[in-house]
């Protein structure tokens, strides 16, 4: 059943994320080519394409989060929820599918952003991604501490992104606690929840990391383990809240 949930969630998100990603890549190409054609003179078309490309790269990140959250709300808590929640699947299977597909959508938007920068660079004779990777590899060789940071960050970001998705879905689910102003409640829980989480983690980080002379000097595995633990606590708390709402407080609109 999870495979079927994943299939349908991929179809639902893919129909928006894929064309958007392709559009951003096309604009990256058009924008770069227009730069070549104009021989250095900035034309209105080139300025426009570059602006659209720039906005597109930024927007695809925001869009992917918005689309993921909206898909979660629409399929579970809108009227479509009558069908979704009547499917022979457990709430955890439902959540797992939505979060995994959302994570892939966000990862895809990251790849599109990197890819479009690479296209822009390649057309203009600059290898942006290659230079970046070479730089990182060189840093890894020169500075083990920095290399450690990079490796640990590569572990931290995916886990942190998944936990953030669970938190965002939990905020959406909080809207089920009221009959009116659901969006306002979800947005309020998101803002307040983030503020409290950041406050608590800042305090915790200060206490736990006091022994280190500075963040830069602290062992990366230690700092990032603390960050990871904080993210995981947020994610697990969100999962429990989501399960509670899905089991006890579903309040679908007629």
């Amino acid at each position, binding site marked *: *059943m999870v495979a*079927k949930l994943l*299939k*349908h969630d991929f179809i*639902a998100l893919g*129909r928006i994320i894929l064309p958007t990603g392709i559009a951003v890549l096309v604009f990256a190409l058009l924008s770069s080519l227009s730069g070549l054609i104009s021989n250095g003179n900035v034309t209105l078309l080139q300025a426009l394409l570059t602006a659209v490309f720039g906005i597109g790269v930024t927007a695809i990140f925001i869009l992917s989060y918005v689309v993921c959250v909206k898909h979660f709300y629409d*399929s579970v808590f809108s*009227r*479509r*929820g*009558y*069908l979704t*929640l*009547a*499917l*022979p*699947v*457990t709430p955890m299977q439902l959540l797992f599918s939505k979060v995994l597909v959302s994570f892939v959508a966000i990862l895809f938007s990251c790849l599109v952003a990197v890819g479009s920068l690479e296209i822009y660079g390649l057309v203009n004779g600059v290898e942006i991604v290659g230079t970046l990777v070479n730089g990182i590899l060189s840093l890894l060789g020169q500075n083990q501490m920095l290399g450690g940071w990079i490796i640990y960050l590569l572990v931290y970001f995916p886990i942190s992104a998944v936990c953030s998705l669970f938190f965002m879905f939990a905020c959406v689910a909080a809207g089920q606690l009221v009959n009116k102003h659901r969006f306002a409640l979800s947005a309020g829980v998101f803002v307040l929840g983030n503020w409290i989480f950041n406050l608590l983690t800042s305090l915790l980080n200060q206490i736990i990391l006091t022994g280190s002379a500075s963040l830069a000097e602290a062992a990366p595995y230690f700092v990032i383990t603390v960050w990871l633990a904080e993210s995981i606590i947020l994610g697990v708390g969100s999962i429990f809240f989501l399960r509670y709402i899905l*089991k*006890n407080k*579903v309040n*679908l*609109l*007629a």
Partner: protein
Amino acid sequence: MNSILSAVGLSKSYGGAPALSNVSLEIPAGGTVGLLGPNGSGKSTFIKLAMGLLQPTAGSIFIDGKRPGVETKRITAYLPDANFLTEWMTVGQMMDYCADFFADFSKEKARAMLARLSIGEKQRIRTLSKGNKEKVSLILTMARNAKLYILDEPIAGVDPAARDYILDTVFSNRAPGSTVILCTHLIYDVQNVLTQAVFLYQGTVALNADVAALCEKEGKPLDEIFKEMFRWSPNY
């Protein structure tokens, strides 16, 4: 006779306001049951509890001997009182969706019912009229060979022709030996097809009887009995 649905002391409150109070009933397998009552009597709450969309404040509800969950959802086809269709999908995609999740979903049955309405599988849900969306929802529900069909207000707000289509679709497509629970306040329209009637009133079971025996005993049709029962109620 085995009961397909049973409730024992079932209660549900919303923020202290009771929607169902101590409801106990048994619905035997194989019949057509009318879950009847005026608006706000607790019919939809009862159905949502049966589907696991709500949790009871007290008591229990069982479908085929099991609490609502994955197993009961496999054998229950549910038509809610809301448009649950995904607007961007085509009718065919909605069929694929249902067929993927419900092993008892028959595409052949669905296609036959769609052909009767001249609705194409490639038509987008969003392009369908409100009436056709309701019919497609019904088709997706009745295309299943389920043990239990729960239909929440299937004939509310439809014209007589559509009502006849809906009732005909339900009774000519239900799986053999299955149970149909029709939840409605339009008793006159369904009284001839019911084998059992459950009257809900203010969250309690006001009457639970075999329709043929009740009508014979009272010497009047079901809707007359219903009207007499609730005529003098100040809340109806």
